């Protein structure tokens, strides 16, 4: 047996072990999701919350940077939410476009002498704080540009309610999304410190008055694959991680946090990217180290609709940013991994993050090199084919289960849209995984070289 032969055997055995572990973990997560979704909302009917005086009041924080195109529709939709007591705090993060002027014109803003609420986080002080005379629930904080995390910290300082909800300025919440979040909070209000919501892709949907009135899958192929990808991530992943209190990411597009906990952990990191994952890791760390009973929950009924990138350039910038954020957070919080003190986060979530999320792009890139090798006439052992085939089949099984589970639980899409998603899952592994894996690896390289561009996100108005 040659040294090459031996090396090949070791690599192939390790690959099979990695694949078996990853797929076993995915199926375990999927089973947890099925159980969790089956039990959801059994305790408290939503109707009981609508007019309740004891639904916790919420401050909705909206950081906005160059969002002049979508900001009016987004804020109008937020002010029309079904929720008893809430306020909307928009932070204009030194936008270079007309975001502030658009807001001033649309909502009749006037400068007010509102002071930051006590127990504040260190944050960039605002230039001016405005309040709307049309709807006093709207506060606009204008400040110099300092990034999303820093803007959220400023917004937290001006939030007056005990719960804060962070959403992106280009996102739309379902009318009842906050009520669903409140239901999840009330079910265990003593321990719940943060709740994540379900993010869906709004491209292709029919939108009227800032509400998604008919859910449709996108016609743009790039947005369509992202719809299937988000379904897999949220339905088969985050639901299950929350069931074991191991959720380490609450999407920046939509999440609810207890304000006092945000203050305790010092708010968001001013460093970008990956601040949405870092805040959750900070909360886990703080609660475990201070022996605070807590849970980080996920509410799959609370839906936030967001615009997905429709061009490769924009999607690439987004995924490279995610790659940088992942690597930064893993590097900063690797000490929590495999330590029983941090329970599910230390023993399951962080090892998953390092062993699967961080490592997967490299496996995919290796797979891509093999495919390229085959195309140029290289010969590879049959076991490679077997591994690729097993990976593809298992991935499709997982994706299809997530799509069907989503349809049976939430009935969001028409049957023909579900069929489209099932077809999309067939071709995703052939190209999409490889392309995103390359972007992720590029993101890791950028992180190691301290290159940190945010990238340009193009926005379009919400169609009527």
């Amino acid at each position: 047996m040659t040294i090459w032969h031996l090396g090949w055997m070791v690599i192939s055995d390790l690959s099979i072990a990695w694949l078996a572990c990853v797929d076993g973990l995915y199926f375990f997560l999927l089973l947890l999701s099925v159980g969790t979704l089956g039990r959801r909302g059994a305790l408290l009917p939503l109707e009981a919350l609508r007019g309740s005086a004891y639904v916790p009041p919420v401050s909705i924080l909206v950081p906005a940077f160059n969002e002049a195109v979508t900001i009016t529709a987004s804020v109008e939709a937020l002010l029309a939410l079904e929720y008893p007591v809430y306020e909307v705090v928009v932070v204009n993060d030194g936008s270079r476009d007309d975001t502030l002027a658009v807001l001033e014109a649309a909502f009749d803003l006037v400068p007010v002498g509102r002071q930051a609420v006590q127990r504040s986080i260190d944050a960039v002080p605002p230039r001016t704080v405005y309040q709307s005379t049309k709807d006093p629930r709207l506060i606009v904080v204008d400040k110099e540009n300092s990034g999303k995390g820093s803007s959220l910290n400023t917004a937290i300082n001006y939030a007056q309610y005990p719960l804060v909800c962070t959403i992106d300025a280009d996102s739309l919440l379902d009318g009842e999304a906050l009520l669903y979040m409140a239901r999840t909070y009330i079910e265990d209000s003593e321990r719940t410190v943060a709740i994540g919501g379900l993010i869906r892709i709004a491209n292709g949907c029919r939108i009227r008055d800032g509400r998604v009135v008919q859910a449709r899958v996108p016609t743009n192929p790039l947005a369509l694959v992202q719809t299937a990808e988000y379904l897999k991530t949220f339905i088969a992943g985050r639901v299950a991680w929350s069931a074991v209190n191991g959720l380490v990411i609450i999407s920046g597009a939509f999440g609810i946090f207890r304000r006092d906990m945000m203050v305790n952990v010092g708010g968001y990191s001013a460093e970008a990217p990956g601040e949405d994952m870092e805040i959750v890791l900070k909360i886990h760390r703080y609660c475990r180290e201070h022996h605070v009973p807590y849970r980080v929950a996920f509410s799959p009924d609370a839906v936030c609709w967001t615009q997905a990138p429709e061009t490769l350039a924009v999607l690439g910038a987004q995924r490279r940013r995610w790659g940088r954020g992942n690597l930064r957070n893993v590097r900063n919080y690797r000490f929590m991994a495999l330590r029983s003190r941090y329970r599910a986060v230390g023993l399951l979530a962080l090892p998953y993050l390092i062993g699967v999320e961080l490592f997967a792009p490299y496996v995919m890139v290796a797979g891509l090199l093999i495919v390229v090798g085959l195309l140029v006439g290289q010969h590879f052992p049959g076991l490679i084919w077997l591994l690729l085939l097993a990976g593809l089949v298992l991935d499709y099984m997982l994706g299809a289960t997530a799509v069907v589970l989503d349809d049976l639980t939430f009935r969001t899409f028409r049957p023909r849209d579900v069929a489209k998603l099932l077809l999309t899952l067939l071709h995703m592994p052939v190209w999409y995984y490889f392309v995103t894996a390359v972007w992720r690896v590029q993101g890791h390289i950028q992180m190691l070289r301290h290159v940190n561009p945010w990238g340009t996100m193009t926005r379009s108005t919400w169609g009527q």
Partner: protein
Amino acid sequence: MLTDNALANLSGLILLVGFVYVGVLIVFWLVAKRYRAVIRRHPRQRAQKALQWGLQHDVQQESVIVAWMEGEPYGQRLLVYAWAAIQCATSLIDLERVVLSVVRHGRRSYDALALLLAASPVNIAPLCLRLLREADASLRTVALRVLARMVPVSEEFAPVLTELFVRGSETERAPALRALLQVYHGTPPLAILEAGLQDASWIIRAVTAGAAGSWQHPDVRVALARAMSDSNWWVRHNAARALGAMGTEGREALRQVASGPDSFARDAAVDVLRVWQLTVESGGRPPGGLVVVP
């Protein structure tokens, strides 16, 4: 190493497993969708017919419509029959039979059932009293919800409500306390208020603080001013609002808290005082908490 033949067999097996799994999944999906459509449609159609039938008896139509709106499809049909039975009932025994048959169908019907019972032409106070002493928690819950619609609550309820407030489950204690506080009018039940404001559950503390504003009494004001340093936002908020509703002396107590050392209590007091100030300035219109910098 695996032979080429074994690899081919394994590949075939993997593909077969994949095809079978996805096939079963799609069949399950289609059947489940069909089944859901069937079970959703039938009770609703039957319930709509029952509603039409119920509305032909033109007494208390509003109650039936509200019950219909609040109920779930399964409960709606049942509630319409229950409404008819309640309207026709001439004795508490008949009413009790209706309650016993309806509560078995789940907690989602409780509110509507309570509404129907409260609108009954028969005096249902004795029935509520009996239900509150039942071992079955669902019957006690319905009775508490009926009491929430009966103002004022008779003094004969005080012992059983106190018992529920002290020893009841988490879901019973807050409504029991609310009803209990409705029993007293002139003199404040200081012992109950004190116990409520020091309870371990924030909901109980918030309910007590919210209800305490009904009594113009110096001891109540002192207790509320103390509650403004509570760890829970709702307790502080309700205590401040209750003090704000207690006239000049209540607002004076709020002003003292507003200049005190506790920043949490200060926030709640300033908020209520500001709203009161703006209400006065704007001639009684709700101000929306707007303060314009001159």
